[in-house]
């Protein structure tokens, strides 16, 4: 579960308007905090030799099942440091890490619902990567990296926001 904070979106907006240098600094700090997760997740992407040969890209591809191209999967693992739009429940995320490729998503969570499927068994037979995390946030790439980060990224993001708020208040007080 993400940490829920109050007033951070407004703070980011105020920073952009009244203290652009602080806004950039905050963004950099957030980036420093969450980059390790995406880097680790990219490191967990298996090479071509570690996935089933039939899953690799080929000239005559049958059907629409996404093939596993390691470089594509790595390129679509990343992070976002600006606030998102509100989701259906009214929450806006302040920082995100994501794994957006189809093959990457499959590799991330395959076997969670059907661990005995032929595909999963074959893949595990060739290269077994551990599922890490808890409950719904359990996976092989991003969730694993997030789990192994032990909340450092979250603390870093919150610290960056808190620091920016304090600095902004300090400036306002001094000038006012």
């Amino acid at each position, binding site marked *: 579960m993400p940490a*829920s904070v109050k007033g951070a979106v407004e703070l980011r907006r105020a920073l952009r308007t009244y203290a652009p240098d602080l806004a950039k600094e905050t963004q950099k700090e957030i980036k420093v905090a969450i980059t390790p997760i995406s880097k680790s997740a990219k490191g967990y992407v298996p090479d071509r030799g570690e996935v089933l040969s039939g899953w690799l890209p080929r000239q005559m591809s049958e059907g629409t099942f996404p093939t596993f191209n390691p470089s594509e999967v790595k390129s679509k693992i990343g992070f976002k440091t600006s606030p998102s739009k509100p989701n259906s429940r*009214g929450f806006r995320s302040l*920082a995100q890490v994501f794994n957006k490729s189809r093959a990457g998503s499959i590799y991330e969570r395959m076997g969670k619902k059907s661990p005995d499927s032929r595909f999963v068994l074959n893949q595990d037979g060739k290269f077994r990567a551990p599922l890490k995390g808890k409950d719904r946030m359990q996976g092989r790439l991003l969730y694993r990296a997030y789990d192994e980060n032990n909340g450092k990224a979250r603390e870093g*993001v919150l610290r960056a926001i808190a620091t920016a708020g304090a600095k902004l208040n300090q400036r306002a007080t001094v000038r006012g």
Partner: protein
Amino acid sequence: MANVVIDIAAEFTGKKAFKQAETATDKMSKNVKKLAGTLGLAFSGQQILAFGKASIKAAAEDEKAQKQLALALKNVGLSRDAASSEDYIQRLQSEFGIVDDKLRPAYQTLAVATRDTQLAQQLLNLSLDISASTGKDLASVTSALSKAYLGNNTALSKLGVGISKADLKAGKFEDIVSQLETTFAGSATAAANTFQGSLDKLGVASANVQEIIGTGLIDALKGLGEDGSVDNLAVQMQAVATYTADVIRGIGVMISYIQTVSENINKIPGLKTLRDAINKVGIGNQALTILNRLGKESAATAAQTGDTAQALAHLAELQSRYAVATLKTNTKLTAEQLKQLKAARLKAALDKAALALNKGEEVFDMEKIQNEAALKSQTEALGKATTSSQVLQIANDTARLNVKKSIFALEDAMAAKDEAAIVAATKKLNADLGILGVLGMQNVKLVDIKTILDSLKPKDLINLMNLEAALASLGKINVATGGSTNVSSGAAPSMPSSLQPRPMGSGYLTKPRAFTNEELQYFEDASQYQFGGMLPAASTSGTSGNTIIVNTGVGDPNAIAEAIDQVLTDAAQRGTLRQYATP
């Protein structure tokens, strides 16, 4: 797409904002509606009646609440403060925009608990501040304060006013109140000065207006005769309401004028004197004073002759009569509406059927179908065309078909009497005719070219069709020169059908075959018939002779012989003469 996304930190912003916006909009619309209703804007007769009833009820309830408060104050020994308490409540409601219906019970609770008017008013002020600041309703805050005054601090601690349980338990009530007054000082005033507070004040004003009108209505209904119909009452009330609204607007305009003029009037001595004189005489106030006196006298009389319940009963009776009359009118209207609805449904069904029929006619319009088919075939032919002349011909045909199609469209439009469609179809037809004209000119040129090319084509030298004519001409020449013919007395042999020329495309080219006896006989007869008289007669000795003419001098025979010999020798050397006999 099933993306894997982890939100590191999030903020809840969405639904709360929506809810706040919804609440604010609802409150505002309710207050505006109340105000519009009170000032009699856009009222129908039925609404006027309903408003009148509501006003009477509001006035009655207000009167009841006043009496209850007075009774409660009397019971706790504060009857002498009843009038001042009522004034205090009226001041509060106009100052903070809170209706007296809420203030009276709150004040009553505190007064009963404290039995002290001054303290009750102090606590009510504090309750208003706490309520405005915390968002709790006034009733629960006053209840908590009154309980705290009596020694029960639980409710006060639950309010969340920033005082710990230990402090509440240890501290005196006066200290707690002092602390609360410090914490929430000015909250109610600040809230009243916001936009929402202004709307609340308007709402309170409208509620008061309703109560005042209701009081007047109670008196008016008591004097209404039995024969006075509700309709008339409603119409008159509507007229009065409209008139009142106009007067209110006029007052607003007048106030603005007065404000403008008052600033300058003191600077002009004559005008100032005149204004003072008018004020002293009181011409403008006289009419209002008379009306006011009449109203007061009427109110006093009404108070003597009856009560509110009687007026309400009278109104209920009148309303029931009005309802019966309205029901009858509505029933008539409903029957008429049913007829109209039935007719409209029938018309709609007929229109639908006519539309379907038109569609059916279009389906079976053979001319159109053929035209469309021809257009389609032209399109297919265009794909197969290889030369520009073919393309031009196809374009010509297509243009003609398009003209035909445009004519059909124009006919349809004329039948439908659709002006726009007729204009459009005419325009399209003209455009198609223009295209056809251009193509037609090119066609003429093409035909000319074709004629020229045909004239340049060589005639057939051997043609079965003209061969007979040629042979007949030769025969005539032969007869004229005295030659004989073997078949002059007989008819020309007839050609067998197998040798007759056939039309193109009917298997003209066939496998090679041997001539039949009939055909061979025909060839023999024909040769004799045509060439028999012309050919030299066959030598009976079996040899044939050739005459060679040698040009030489006359006289010396040897020279002639040598010349002949030389010619023959040369011929032999050339190979053209292989054998010759010496003379």
